[in-house]
């Protein structure tokens, strides 16, 4: 792919705690291009969540750079269109990145429709009427049109996660980050969520997905990263990673999960 397709460039990203005793991220370098479906795998505690959370600056890195459209967002001040240094608007940046969590994190005191319209309306991205129309059409697409007036507690896990995905889509993000979106689901509900993600991928959405669903990684992913101890130990096309893993740790990991 051409260089200007690079949406996010991560360079030597570090997140250390306790003077480097804990290295959640220890020099991660990777490019994420438009339309990529990048799957991140690795054992628990290897830094996958920290990596995702750094991308939308929920975690502040202790070293390295994250270039988003070529601009280093880890800097407090970034150049604007005229080249003047201005304070980075974190909230604006986060609007461009949708995030889906393991535990859904729907707002329990709001209906499904309110969950979806809250951010676009409060952030004046859409009028209330437009937001509701958009939310309804998104709910339609994930087969939950009839649940708009329900509260999250009334939904199954799979339904909640589908709502969480379309809630993030309401802000029309440029990239979607998924942190183990199916890990908290009963097995029979995993499929319906993966189906929505697959559809999203086929529409060309740029996605970074932390998951233990190796079938999804192989089928939908176009690149797979293997992380361990805060480092990317191996990366490549799904076929390379799954059929001919080179790093012994990756071989060991795959023998446990496959």
């Amino acid at each position: 792919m051409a260089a200007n397709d690079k949406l996010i460039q991560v360079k030597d990203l570090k997140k250390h705690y306790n003077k480097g005793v804990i290295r959640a991220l220890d020099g991660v370098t990777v490019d994420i291009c438009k339309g990529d479906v990048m799957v991140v795998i690795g054992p628990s505690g290897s830094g996958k969540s920290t990596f995702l959370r750094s991308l939308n600056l929920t975690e502040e890195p202790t070293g390295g750079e994250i270039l988003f459209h070529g601009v280093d967002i880890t800097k407090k001040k970034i150049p604007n269109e005229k080249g003047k240094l201005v304070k980075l608007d974190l909230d604006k940046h986060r609007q461009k990145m949708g995030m889906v969590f393991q535990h859904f994190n729907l707002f329990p005191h709001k209906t499904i429709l309110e969950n979806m319209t809250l951010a676009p309306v409060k952030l004046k991205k859409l009028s209330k009427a437009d937001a509701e129309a958009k939310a309804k059409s998104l709910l339609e697409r994930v087969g939950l049109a009839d649940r708009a007036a329900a509260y999250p507690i009334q939904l199954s896990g799979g339904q909640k996660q589908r709502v969480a995905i379309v809630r993030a889509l309401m802000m029309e993000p440029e990239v979607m980050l998924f942190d183990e979106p199916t890990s908290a689901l009963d097995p029979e509900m995993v499929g319906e969520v993966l189906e929505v993600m697959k559809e999203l991928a086929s529409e060309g959405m740029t996605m970074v997905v932390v998951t233990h669903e190796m079938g999804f990684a192989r089928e939908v992913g176009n690149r797979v990263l293997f992380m361990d101890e805060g480092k990317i130990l191996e990366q490549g096309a799904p076929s390379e990673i799954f059929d001919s893993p080179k790093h012994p740790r990756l071989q060991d990991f795959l023998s446990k999960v496959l």
Partner: protein
Amino acid sequence: MGSMISQAGFDLTFKYVKLFEQGIVVTVMLALFTVIFGFLLGILLCILRMTDIRPFRFLAIDRNGRLRDGGILLTLSKFNPVSFLATCYVEVIRSTPVLVQILIIYHGLFKAISLPKFTFFGFISFERFFPGVVALAMNSGAYLCEIIRSGIQSIDGGQSEAARSLGLSRGQTMLHIVLPQAIRNILPAIANEFVVIIKESAICYTIGVQDIMAAVEAVRGATFRIMEPLLVATALYFCLCFPTSKIIAYVERRMSRGSKR
């Protein structure tokens, strides 16, 4: 002296029914003002404790403009003097008896600040009533601060994270996501605090506030009966507190039904 409790004792006590009537008014007023001021103080303390005022914030960033990964400077950068002082206040109040607090307020603070001498409602002496309210409010403000704060902290961090990931600001997240859930969670505790204040206000008779307990003391002084006036006081406090907590419980049930959670 007759038996410990007798009809004659009650007859004597009921001669002073006027004192008890006044006592009820004073007790209710004490509790009401205390709740209002205590709640305002609680909110203020809570805001102070949750501020992000860090004069040494710059120490968190190293020479290359990066967040430090640990060490004394990072710890120092997190120091918030406003939050620290508010925390000290809350902890001192919660770790000392309310009786000591009320005596210090009355004999210390309000000997230094002289209050106007007047009565309102015909029988409430402002000079004694006001220090009572101040002491009770200062006390319950500390507890209410903790209640509000723990309510906010009880909300799963994933809620804020989800809200922030959608682009909502810190303030919007607090207002639309965290507070509505927190307030619902702490309503029982706040209501309970109100009932506690009604009961704790009994201590104000030690500084001469003419509440229900002062009526008990007055009857005892005049008739040398103690059990009968005490039983009357017991009945009165019960009649104030029990329905209050029942009404609050009812309102709570109504509210949680409305939210369909």
